[in-house]
């Protein structure tokens, strides 16, 4: 890994790591007695370890071959492995959180393990840890391949990847200590947010620099999706996290907005995070790896560009549907509802485009579990965007909001779409990155696929049932006009679904563990026998677009 860096680059990396360690030390000193102090020690340890790793290899020989003749894949490789690590951690946390709902004793009476603290570890772990690292790693791969150019330098990608992971570690360790802004998907406190801004700006500049040195004149559509992901997430993150620290030596801060204004900003952010973190970037992944794996160009490239602009424009105002029947003015709610419904058009255009790409190559989908991951992801994308538009309609939301239906909807998207497309992409990517002919075990990929699919379906169905039951029980009145069920009654009714949900999540977690094992084995050794079908077999089914131009 270090052998691909020149001595000057190693020195730069050490300066950056050293500066980080110093900042950690300052935080630790200034924040004594506050969780910020603990975070300082974590930053110091993280940066110190990096300093040590780079420093111990400082005197190693420098790279001899012309580095511009190859792509820079080391950060991608590490990113994929980190993503898989976070997948196991985040999903494991998810299973634990789900179990706590079914069996509350699993909290073990500790403060750090209470539901409110480990739930954000789960959400941030899977969204930012797994999803974010998968996005960063695949974006490094895709931007180099589609530009047919190497990244402009070797230190920046490491800064982005490791800096982002430092943010993830600070965030999740903070949750366990009770450090939170109490904003969904934006829990980390002010110093972590500031750090993420730095990392994110460097990420954006790195992407633009790579595009600027491209040797392929056309910018493939996946890059547009990734760029929108990076740029918009930066803007959202900055606006939503505008806050005033209570003191520079403590973690606590206060939002710049108050009351319903704060709620509006939060969901303007929250829903756009769904749009640009959990959709746009992963669509970029889909638009690259699906055609690549199916060995067919995207069904309608024009449509993929059109739906890019559609998604970019329609998503912006959909967020207020999270605040139906609140103090938010009625017309703002209606606005969010209208745009959420209209959003269905570009969303289904993308899902349809993906499925039409596979039309004519169904035999490959049948034979190749990797491609099947992507196909099912596109189906779940279509399903959950439809469900989302439906749930944004105010009367429907009256039943669904604050129930498990919302949880089911989120997981249909997160497990069915985000995780499946990421796993599919990782399986397609791993053999390319590590120059293996195939993945280690195609059987394991099959197992993972069926476990993930079964887990998602069980989870989502359990939550639909539980959510609708819950919603109906809450709104049932007796003849005398009082509520028919107490809150405890609803919890009793939910219990079997919570058990089923835990089981579904467990299946999904087992699948993720198999996936991580399979990738590690792909790296560690070659398969003993040539797999029969990991790879698409041939390109015989490529029909000519135009029958006769002879």
């Amino acid at each position, binding site marked *: 890994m270090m052998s691909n860096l020149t001595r000057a680059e190693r020195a730069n990396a050490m300066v950056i790591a050293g500066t980080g360690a110093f900042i950690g030390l300052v935080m630790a000193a200034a924040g004594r007695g506050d969780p910020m102090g603990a975070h300082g020690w974590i930053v110091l340890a993280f940066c110190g370890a990096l300093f040590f790793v780079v420093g111990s290899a400082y005197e190693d020989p420098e790279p001899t071959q012309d580095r511009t003749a190859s792509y820079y894949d080391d950060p991608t490789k590490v990113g994929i492995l980190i993503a898989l690590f976070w997948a196991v951690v985040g999903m494991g946390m998810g299973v634990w959180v789900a179990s706590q709902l079914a069996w509350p004793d699993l909290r073990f009476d500790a403060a750090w393990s209470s539901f409110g603290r480990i739930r954000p570890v789960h959400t941030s772990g899977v969204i930012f840890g797994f999803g974010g690292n998968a996005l960063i790693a695949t974006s490094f791969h895709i931007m180099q391949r589609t530009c047919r150019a190497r990244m402009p330098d070797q230190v920046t990608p490491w800064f982005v990847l490791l800096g982002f992971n430092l943010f993830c570690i600070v965030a999740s360790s903070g949750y366990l200590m009770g450090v939170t802004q109490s904003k969904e998907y934006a829990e980390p406190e002010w110093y972590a947010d500031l750090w993420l801004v730095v990392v994110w700006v460097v990420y954006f500049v790195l992407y633009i620099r790579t595009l600027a040195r491209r040797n392929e004149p056309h910018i493939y559509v996946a890059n547009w999706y990734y760029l929108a992901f990076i740029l918009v997430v930066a803007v959202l993150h900055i606006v939503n996290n505008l806050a005033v620290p209570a003191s520079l030596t403590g973690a606590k801060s206060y939002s710049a907005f108050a009351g319903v204004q704060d709620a509006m900003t939060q969901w303007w952010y929250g829903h756009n995070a769904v749009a640009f973190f959990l959709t746009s970037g992963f669509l970029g992944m889909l638009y690259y790896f699906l055609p690549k794996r199916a060995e067919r160009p995207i069904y309608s490239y024009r449509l993929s560009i059109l739906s890019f602009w559609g998604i970019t424009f329609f998503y912006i105002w959909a967020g207020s549907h999270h605040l139906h029947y609140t103090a938010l003015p009625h017309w703002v709610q209606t606005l969010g509802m209208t745009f959420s419904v209209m959003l269905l058009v570009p969303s289904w255009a993308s899902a349809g485009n993906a499925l039409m790409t596979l039309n004519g190559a169904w035999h490959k989908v049948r034979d190749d579990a990797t491609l099947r991951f992507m196909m099912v992801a596109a189906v779940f994308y279509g399903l959950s965007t439809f469900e989302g538009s439906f749930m944004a309609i105010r009367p429907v939301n009256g039943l669904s909001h604050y129930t498990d239906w919302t949880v089911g909807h989120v997981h249909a998207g997160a497990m069915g779409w985000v995780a499946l497309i990421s796993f599919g992409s990782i399986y397609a990517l791993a053999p390319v990155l590590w120059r293996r002919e195939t993945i280690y075990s195609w059987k394991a990929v099959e197992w993972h696929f069926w476990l993930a699919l079964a887990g998602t379906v069980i989870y989502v169905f359990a939550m639909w049932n539980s959510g609708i039951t819950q919603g109906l029980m809450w709104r049932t009145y007796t003849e005398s006009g009082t509520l028919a069920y107490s809150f405890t009654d609803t919890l009793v009714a939910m219990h079997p679904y919570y058990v089923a949900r835990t089981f579904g999540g467990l299946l999904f977690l087992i699948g993720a563990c198999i996936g991580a094992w399979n990738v590690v084995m792909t790296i560690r050794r070659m398969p003993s026998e040539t797999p029969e079908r990991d790879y698409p077999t041939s390109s015989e089914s490529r029909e000519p677009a135009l029958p006769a*131009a002879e």
Partner: protein
Amino acid sequence: MRVISEKHDRKVRPAPSGPVTRAERSASVRPAANGHGVCLISVPNISCGACVARIERALIDCPGVVAARANLTLRQVRVTLTDANTDPSPGYEALAALGYTARPLDPSDTEPASAQQDGPDLLRCIAVAGFGAMNVMLLSVAVWSGAEATTRDTFHLISALIAVPVVAYAGQPFFRSALVVLRGGRLNMDVPIALAVLLALALSLSELLQGGDHVFFDAAVTLLFFLLTGRYLDQLMRDRARSAVTGLARLSPKGAMARGPDGSLEWIALHAVAKGMILHIDAGERVPVDVRILHGDTDLDRSLVTGEAMPVAASPGTELEAGTLNLTGGIEVEVLRPVAESFLAEMMRMLSAAETSRSTYVRIADRAARLYAPVVHLLAVATFAGWLLVTGDWQVSAFVAISVLIITCPCALGLAVPVAQVVAAGRLMRSGILMKDGSALERLAQIDRAVFDKTGTLTTGTPMVTSCFEGEAEQREASKALAMQSRHPAAQAIAAHLPEVACEVADAVEVPGFGVEGRVHGRRARLGRARWVAEIAADPQAATGPAFAFEGAPALSFDLSETLRPGAVDTISDMQSSGIPVTMLSGDDAARVAQVAETLGIAEAHHGMTPARKVGVLEDLRDRGHRALMVGDGLNDTAALAAAHVSMAPSTAADAGRTAADFVFLRDGLDAVATAQDVARATARVVRQNFGLAIAYNCIAIPLAVAGLVTPLIAALAMSASSILVIGNSLRLNGKRAAAPLQSVERGPVAIPA
């Protein structure tokens, strides 16, 4: 990960004319930035991504090539050379080796139609209108949902700040067009559009200034967006067909090799060729101007000029028309007439004469607009007057009148025709049929007569061996070997017909006008004209077709005949049974014409037709009130193609023919004609339905608008709904499965004495 399939088995037909001269290729290189040279090459048979990869890979390995980029949409390759003086020929050879037809492309051919119009590009207008529509719509939805008081006024103000520049920029295509038409004292669809948009904007601004409730900024901007989309689709369709047609191999040479007084050869541009000049025309080249042969013997393919399929021998003294293809031998010729007076130019004059007579056709959308625009404007005026009389409040009256204008604005009408035609064009293109413009589709749906040219249209124009001697393995191998030495169509037909492996041939010589001679297994052998072969054969009596003989051995003969285009029989019989009488026009002799007519069951066949008489037949049909489809390929058909109500040409047609025809089909089979006709009729049906939908919508909306019941919300929703309905209905055209094109010869060759 992916290996590009080697079994790229697409049949590659040789270029209709021979290779381009080296000089012509070099002349196509233009200097570019950094001292590099750039040339554009048209490669009509790029058909998939694998072709792109293969072509770029092959070109980049050529000497002098710095970069190469193939464009799959336009079927062109852009090659960057080390400098402007680099010879691009190795690139052409590499392309030819891969089986691709390659011709230099004149940059002037590739200018898109949009570049000629002034004002901003349509796509830019759409982007601006789309941006405006999204944001104004957002603010409007907020207002409709109940944003009140200051919030509402602020939103109206922001809407105005967005809408005014957006309309000023994106509305230009409509404003310009409306202005031009109004200056000419006429009306078209753009007049009500421009009026509605401007009035909506003006009324909204005045409402805004007075703090009124209703503003129409959203309607004005979304209207523009939808209409621009319709217009863009229309333009896209025409540009695409245009680029595909110009991308097809060009047949008319752009220059010639002139012999200077010192005997040197120099390439000169076509317009510089003067009477009395001596030109050198290589085998495989096309004759650029009318000439007389001074030296050399050769065979000529005059099929594009006269419609005669079989090559004819030529010797000094023969006069050649421009467009003739020189097949076998290099010749020195004297220029008889300058370019402007050549046969080709004569054809062009007839063509433009015929075209002006056809330009009277009015497109269906414009016909609708002529009726529609006055009605709408009168209605708006009447509404204004009515409301003014009843209420006496001119402001309310103006508001209602403008609501009428907006709601009746031909949004759906503007989309009704282009969307249907674009979908149809896409379907035709997938079936290998290119359509020049939407009106052609309208005209094709109306035909009640069909006129076909014979050679190159009903028949493929290339000969095929119908019978040859059997057994005699040695003779067959030798025949094949000799046949492979020549590019004469008869020799190529023989080579293709014989399955044997060719044997070694020594000292092969092609004697232009006669045949090929060589030594096979030490024996002298000839393949060619029967009389010439008989000179060395044992039996002196000559067969009619081409023959082969070893010296001193008996001559063995081949029978050649024209082949019918695949699908010809079915197409003709289907047309006749569906009530469209078919006429055949040919410059060929009576016997061959009669034979083809009989095979195809065509009752009315004219032989010995000159270009002028062909036009005469079509004009006669038109005068009798018929709407005729002309299908032809030759230069001699060009004027007739233009004179017909609607016309089609195969992609192998003469350059001028392809330009004159409304449709060009890239596939081999004549069933393209039936496919195009089916699509045209289906499109006409859908267009009628779309008009029906738009009118039905207006019938409901206008009374509401006149009654003053339409708020901006209802107007915007109704407008979008009708547009989406029309688009949805048009997309049904895609549902019909395109018939698989015929690729192989389905009927055997017709025995026509060659």
